[in-house]
């Protein structure tokens, strides 16, 4: 099963777990599965319009999915997806 690595600041929404098994054939489906099971995480990943917040990055292994097919990037059962925030401010 595909797993998603959860970064430290979001682990409070996944019962403290750092890796969550998810279902889905694409990154978008995997995210939808994650947010359906842990709805409190959703406002910290998605804007009100449903778009990803600008600080949310998803890596399939070593590659940023933005350099692949974005949210439509395909996943297999052995893939590991990493949810990694950009940290920014001003």
């Amino acid at each position, binding site marked *: 099963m595909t797993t998603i690595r959860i*970064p*430290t*600041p*979001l*682990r*409070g929404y996944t019962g403290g777990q750092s890796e969550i098994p998810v279902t889905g054939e694409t990154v978008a489906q995997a995210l939808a599965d994650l947010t359906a099971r842990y709805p409190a995480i959703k*406002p*910290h990943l998605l804007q009100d319009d449903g778009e990803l917040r*600008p*600080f949310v*990055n998803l*890596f399939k292994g070593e590659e*940023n999915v933005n350099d692949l097919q974005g949210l439509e990037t395909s996943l297999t059962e052995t893939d590991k997806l*990493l949810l*990694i*925030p*950009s*940290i*920014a*401010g*001003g």
Partner: protein
Amino acid sequence: MSIHIPPDLLAKIHDHARESHPDEGAGFLFGADGDPRSVSAVYGLPNAREDGARHDRFLITPRDYLKGELEAERLGLEIVGVFHSHPDSPNQPSEYDREWAQPYFSYVITSVYAARDVDSRSWRLAEDRSKFFEENIVLGREDL
């Protein structure tokens, strides 16, 4: 709500702010959550914003984030927050800080004037992301 930062580590944060001036400097706070939350190491990182933007913006890239998180785990700690400086401006979170903030983390903001005078305050994002709450910075262990 408070965060314990030993004086030598707060001094490191302040040195980082002075050395980064007139740009913003930033890094991670490693430690453990609790009451108070405690910081036991600081981990300075490069400001990845482009030239000309670093005086009022900072960026820690996802690759540097992951490197920091793995380093914290190697030390048996976790990232409990982020520190960054506000060169020649107050140590209050900006609207941009709020928009980009993560839940859970403590945000230590250091004002640094003329690369010399420093002062820090710490903040945590409200659960609905609408604002920050200030938390006390506790320095000496005798204060615990």
